[in-house]
């Protein structure tokens, strides 16, 4: 192993050694996880899962682990009536709302262990995909686990989970969240990543289990600072007739990578994954969506809209795999992209693998610019070029925005888009 590869690992190993003694009964599990990370290392230049996203800048950083319990922290106004705040990977009661909605139970790692929950599940490292290495690093370094259980048959009021880091200092954090939706339940969870302009690594893992006949909505807003590295792995398993609905707004971070993987594990399980990303400035936003159809009559929809401008770059990789035996399944996949300026770039790759014969599948991806005929039409009515561009850019996101059925979340997303559009449309004719 040459020095340039060994060196970042040595940094992470030192960080791990420094906290390992405090892990007590989870140390063995965490050590195994760390070794998994050490074995996989950072992705190499030929790693297909990182073809368009280089982590060389991240590799060169030596972020200390942040764990600043009790440090004051200013958070934006919540997007739901209940809030759970996670700062540097730890739940902060002082920043969370006093109560949780009926039907929702929250436990920490220690509490869950005391209740007899399996440590293997709480610190699970699933295999495969480009972010497995980071999920392993998360299992090694996460200071705690936030375990949320939605009760059997409960219909739970919306909850915002805000994930942020101690302000102003560079550092890294490894938040870990587990959401388990019991049979027949309905839940709406807003997962909001927020951060300032300090350079940092946020390495987040979200495990979701959607039980039989349950519906789980996840509203994800990535609004980290322009110098943040944000890596996130969201993995969901959906049981019989369960539905997992994701509304994703991948808006901020200097470099972001999301791996969103859904396993439709039992008959009639369904996933609706819609989202948008906006890579302006010099942001690099990478979204990898994978749906595994593993059972009869499963359905999935992927509809992602992407915009890039300036020196921004976005990557979208959407994949649906219909496994043998998953007959009468439906997989629909759309990715539409808009390049607002010539220097911007979006690399999109829709993939469909089908190993069953009685299925309905479609996929398509387009990348284009604002429609010249529509631009002229609007300008011929007196709208300025900026107004016309702005109206058409907003319209482009409309189909995905209109699906966002949580008003406060949709408003927050729209506000961020509006302020970013206003800036980039005015500076870039």
């Amino acid at each position, binding site marked *: 192993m040459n020095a340039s590869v060994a060196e970042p690992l040595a940094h992470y190993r030192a960080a791990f050694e420094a906290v390992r003694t405090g892990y007590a009964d989870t140390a063995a599990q965490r050590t195994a996880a760390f070794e998994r990370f050490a074995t996989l290392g950072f992705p190499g230049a030929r790693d297909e899962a990182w073809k368009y996203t280089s982590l060389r800048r991240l590799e060169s950083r030596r972020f200390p682990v942040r764990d600043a319990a009790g440090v004051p922290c200013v958070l934006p106004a919540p997007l739901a009536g209940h809030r759970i705040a996670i700062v540097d990977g730890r739940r902060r009661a002082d920043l969370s709302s006093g109560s949780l909605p009926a039907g929702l139970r929250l436990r920490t790692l220690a509490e869950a262990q005391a209740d007899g929950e399996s440590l293997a599940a709480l610190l699970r490292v699933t295999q495969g995909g480009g972010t497995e290495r980071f999920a392993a690093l998360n299992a090694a370094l996460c200071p705690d686990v936030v375990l949320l259980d939605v009760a059997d048959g409960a219909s739970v009021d919306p909850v915002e989970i805000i994930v942020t880091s101690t302000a102003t200092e560079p550092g890294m954090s490894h938040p870990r969240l587990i959401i388990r939706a019991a049979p027949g339940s309905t839940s709406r969870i807003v997962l909001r990543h927020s951060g300032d302009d300090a350079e940092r690594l946020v390495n987040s893992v979200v495990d979701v289990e959607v039980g039989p006949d349950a519906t789980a909505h996840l509203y994800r807003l990535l609004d980290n600072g322009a110098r943040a590295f944000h890596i996130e792995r969201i993995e969901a398993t959906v049981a019989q007739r369960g539905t997992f609905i994701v509304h994703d707004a991948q808006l901020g971070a200097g470099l972001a990578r999301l791996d969103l993987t859904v396993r439709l594990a039992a008959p009639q399980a369904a996933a609706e994954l819609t989202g948008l990303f906006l890579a302006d400035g010099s942001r690099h936003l990478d979204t990898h969506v994978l749906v595994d159809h593993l059972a009869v009559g499963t359905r999935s929809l992927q509809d992602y809209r992407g915009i890039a401008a300036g020196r921004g770059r976005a990557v979208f990789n959407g994949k649906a795999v219909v496994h043998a035996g998953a007959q009468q399944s439906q997989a629909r996949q759309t990715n539409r992209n808009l390049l607002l300026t010539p220097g911007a770039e979006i690399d999109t790759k829709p993939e469909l693998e089908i190993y069953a014969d009685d299925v309905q599948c479609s996929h398509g991806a387009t990348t284009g610019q604002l429609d010249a005929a529509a631009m002229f*039409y609007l300008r*011929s*009515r*007196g*709208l*300025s070029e900026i*107004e016309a561009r702005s*109206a058409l850019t907003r*319209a482009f996101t409309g189909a995905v925005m209109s699906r966002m059925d949580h008003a406060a979340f949709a408003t927050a997303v729209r506000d961020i888009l509006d302020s970013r559009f206003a800036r980039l449309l005015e500076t870039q004719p």
Partner: protein
Amino acid sequence: MNDIMLSIRDLHAQIGARKILKGINLEVRAGEVHAIMGPNGSGKSTLSSVLAGREGYEVTAGSVEYLGQDLLEMAPEDRARAGVFLAFQYPVEIPGVNNAYLLKAALNAVRKQRGLPEFDAFEFLAMVRDKMKLMQMDESFLNRGVNEGFSGGEKKRNEILQMAVLEPKLALLDETDSGLDIDALRVVANGVNSLRGPDRAIVMVTHYQRLLDYIEPDFVHVLYDGRILKSGDKSLALELEKRGYDWVRQEALVA
């Protein structure tokens, strides 16, 4: 006689290397209605596109003066704000941009230019409702995407609705009658006629005489191969209907 509103002199325009307008001369005064007729490919739509400022046309010679300004130097939105309105032959569908949003933004852009206060949502709605009645359009159209999923007739009505709301000084109607059944044609013509007035000029480009039964022009011009070969009053349109365009060409050749 009113002052000249639009003065086109020796206008030449081309798309790429293809010359389309080959020396157009036309003067339009406030209060006048002009019809420009001609066979397909004569340059009718190019003329209205050049006047509205569509990209892709190169003006190689000539000038267009509008109310004392060099029209060709103006951006499309500045032409619109100065009172030029083009009713499109093929109105563009813009899903996701609300019809009401466009109407209000367009109206306030024009009002701002005229030194009038912007309309608030209430004043705007009251005004648009009236105009929609005139165009026999349901109010639900306001909340749909611009022309999204509209039938051909609905699109043309929407064009005239916009024109009625914006109250332009110079209205250019590009083949507004194409694709309309007789009932829709009546509604559209009725909308246009309601806008006739001493301060407004209307230039209609059309292939067929039919529209002129409903909107009577003061002048009729025959456009052929990029030039106006003949001008006259509305009787010229009837003659064209009867005899076609060829005799005009013959006559021009002899002259």
